[in-house]
């Protein structure tokens, strides 16, 4: 396993008090929250890369429909057979890639990175705990996640291929596609949901029970609040989808009709089902999870950003309480907005009014959080290192993502924009240059704590600037395409809707709009190349990076930096006590510009 290189240090340097566990116990079946966090992190990064490659192949197909994929075409054909005949992605394979890109990115890459990796590694450190409340449950949650990932991954290689109905898996389509990939998807989802539930219970319990003496709620770093809120969202929103997943599985394998109505005639004749179900029921259950899930993706990112901004402005966060209440407000209201994904399913004015109102309400705490972070910059002494650059870029990028959610929140505007590339642009701005930038920022920031070495600054900055530019090359044109009405999930990049096909049809797409597909493709290729410095930097710096001067090289205040480097099993040399808030930077009348949370007040 790749985790060995990272985790080698704790075992080597510490553990003097009791016998060092063997290889399997240390790296594979470890119950140490830090090892589990790194396991989560590396697995999720692999899936992130894999999900990106799926997208890259889709972008090729969109920009060059019917043409073989360069370089990878014959490999793909050898691997997957007829669906990639002659190296050309068939519509079936495109739909598989589309469904799996979404599923992998959300459930196997971002959530495991943001909550599994960051939550596991940092929450116990930041609250001054020895480990998570339930270490074995923690190990189990990683293993179940890993199994879920395997199930999703192997579904590409079964006859018929992986699921083809989008990451949303709307029945009856998901029932009617002739592949068992959907069954794999559903079983995989049950595993992933179970894993998230175990993880969230663990984080919630840990935060409530294991805070160091003196670490009151309002002294918690905002990162911990963000993880805590996100865990509640996972805990409360995932069970409905788990139930729905099992119901759809029964529809698929046991002949029930939870989601299948009477009179269904797929392919001509009446389907042999009992009927009486409702396809809309699935949508409600799915989005009841999937909207809070969006905030599971974004809240930990905001937490990471807050830590890095406070540290690199050398001043306390502005409006800490507003941030905390904003996060809690987002968490609460996120359960009341799900049907804004369903405005076009035949929604009357009453229901539409309710969901539009809640959607506008949830924009307010989001704006408050973003404003607090922007205001925090004022009066700072801003250091522009790589983590800070990523953290700063998060603000306008997430700003674009958040603002473009506004028109989608109005049902009338949704008539025009629903299911267009505008939607794709919107949520990718939230998740890609938003959350993923935050995750990058966090990796650069906490790397010295994990390894005792910095990542390379020069290559880090190259990674940052190229990623920022190419991200915008990829996602900005999507708004233009969306305004023109170009729809998502078109395996040929919408050439069938081209105005070149039929003369004189109003509403067909111009060749300029469709031509943007090619621009986006090369933006995506550039974005892929921009990650190469990062990948090399990440592994090279483990052993060759510049050594950190101390255990607290960024002069940070929170408890995670007041440990030996890397933190040993049990984390702290002596159990810490906390005497002050999380961001006591540049306190007037003190010599240093930071006071760690666990530093006793000076004797008078």
């Amino acid at each position, binding site marked *: 396993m790749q985790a060995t290189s990272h985790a080698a240090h704790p075992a080597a340097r510490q553990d003097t008090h009791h016998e060092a566990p063997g290889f399997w116990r240390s790296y594979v079946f470890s119950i140490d929250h830090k090892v589990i966090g790194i396991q989560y992190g590396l697995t999720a990064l692999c899936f992130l890369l894999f999900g990106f490659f799926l997208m890259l192949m889709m972008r090729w197909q969109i920009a060059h429909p019917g043409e073989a994929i360069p370089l990878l075409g014959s490999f793909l054909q050898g691997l997957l057979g007829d669906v990639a005949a002659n190296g050309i992605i068939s519509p079936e394979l495109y*739909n598989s890639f589309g469904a799996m890109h979404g599923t992998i990115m959300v459930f196997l890459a971002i959530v495991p990175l943001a909550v599994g990796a960051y939550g596991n590694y940092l929450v116990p450190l930041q609250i001054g705990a020895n480990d998570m409340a339930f270490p074995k449950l923690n190990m189990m949650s990683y293993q179940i996640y890993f199994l879920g990932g395997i199930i999703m991954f192997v579904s590409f290689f079964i006859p018929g291929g992986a699921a083809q109905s989008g990451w949303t898996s709307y029945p009856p389509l998901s029932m009617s596609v002739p592949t068992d990939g959907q069954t794999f998807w559903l079983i995989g989802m049950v595993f992933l949901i179970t894993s998230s539930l175990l993880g969230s219970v663990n984080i919630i319990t840990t935060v409530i029970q294991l805070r160091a003496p003196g670490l009151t709620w309002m002294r918690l770093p905002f990162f911990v609040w963000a993880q805590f809120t996100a865990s509640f969202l996972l805990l409360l929103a995932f069970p409905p989808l788990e139930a729905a997943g099992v119901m759809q599985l029964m529809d698929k394998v046991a002949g029930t009709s939870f989601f299948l109505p009477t009179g269904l005639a797929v392919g001509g004749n009446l389907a042999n089902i009992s009927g009486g179900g409702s396809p809309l029921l699935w949508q409600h259950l799915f989005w009841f999870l999937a909207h809070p899930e969006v905030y599971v993706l974004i809240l930990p990112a905001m937490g990471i950003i807050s830590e890095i901004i406070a540290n690199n402005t050398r001043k306390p966060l502005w409006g800490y309480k507003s941030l905390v209440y904003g996060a809690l407000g987002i968490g609460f209201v996120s359960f009341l907005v799900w049907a804004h994904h369903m405005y076009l399913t035949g929604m009357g004015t009453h229901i539409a009014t309710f969901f539009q109102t809640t959607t506008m309400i949830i924009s307010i705490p989001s704006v408050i959080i973003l404003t607090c972070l922007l205001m925090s910059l004022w009066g*700072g002494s801003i250091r522009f290192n790589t983590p800070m650059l990523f953290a700063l870029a998060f603000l306008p990028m997430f700003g674009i993502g958040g*603002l473009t959610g506004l028109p989608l929140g109005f049902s009338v505007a949704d*008539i025009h924009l629903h299911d267009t590339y505008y939607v794709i642009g919107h949520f990718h701005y939230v998740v890609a240059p938003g959350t993923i930038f935050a995750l990058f920022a966090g990796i650069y920031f906490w790397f010295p704590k994990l390894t005792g070495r910095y990542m390379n600054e020069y290559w880090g900055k190259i990674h940052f600037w190229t990623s920022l530019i190419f991200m915008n090359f990829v996602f900005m044109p999507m708004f233009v395409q969306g305004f023109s009405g170009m729809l998502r999930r078109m395996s040929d990049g919408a050439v069938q809707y081209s105005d070149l096909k039929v003369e004189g049809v109003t509403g067909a797409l111009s060749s300029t709009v469709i031509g943007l597909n090619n621009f986006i493709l090369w933006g995506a290729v550039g974005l892929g190349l921009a990650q190469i410095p990062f990948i090399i930097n990440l592994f090279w710096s483990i052993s060759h990076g510049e050594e950190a001067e101390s255990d607290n090289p960024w002069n940070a205040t929170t408890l995670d930096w007041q440990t030996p480097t890397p933190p040993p099993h049990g984390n702290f040399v002596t159990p810490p006590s906390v005497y002050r808030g999380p961001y006591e930077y540049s306190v007037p009348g003190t010599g240093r510009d930071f006071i760690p949370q666990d530093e006793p007040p000076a004797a008078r």
Partner: protein
Amino acid sequence: MGQFLNLPPIASDQGPGVNGLVSYIHWLMISLFIGWLIYFIYTLYRFRASRQPKADYQGVRNHASSYLEVVVAGIEACLLLFVALPLWARAVEKFPTEKESTVLQVMGQQFAWNARYSGLDGVFGKQDMNRVKADNTFGVDPADPAGNDDIQVLNEMHVPVNKPVIAYISSRDVIHSFKVLAMRAAQDAIPGMRIPMWFKPNRIGKFQVFCAQLCGSGHASMAQGLIVVESQEDYDKWIASKSPKK
């Protein structure tokens, strides 16, 4: 309105409303974003470490941002109450009567649109979903004489200009979405449900129908749908040409 976003042409009475709302929101978004960006860049310049070696513990002391938040929330509330909700109520509840409208039933299937007109008598024949077959998409009851003159067409749907169109949208296999971009009208086609939508075309021409919901491997090719808006005389001729000869 809507020109600065390069929104596509409109051909229905509700089009300007939709365009207007989309544009208003974008004015709000763009002004907020530019404001933020100016503040952001100026702050980064003014408070960079080399120029400001020591940070200010307090930071911002005023509450300008709170007022801004209240203003944004106020604008959102106004847009919602005075623009979005009335428009939506018009679109989904204030239907014209069937008498003054062109009524058609639309049934999505993989990968085409079927449409059914009540024909010269103006009455649809009875339907039963259990009768749906490959050659009976709408599950029409052959015993009902009212159905004898019903017209069924594939993909190309003719309607007269300046007369409301009520379309009952459904699907017989998977979820599709019936979207007529130029009319600013869209409705998901959901099996087991028959959901009405309406729009009033106000100019003659051919208008693209999009399938806006992933419906299988042929989703991208489900592009033959057309709304043909024509004068009342042309429409009457078309109906006559499609009707069974007496």
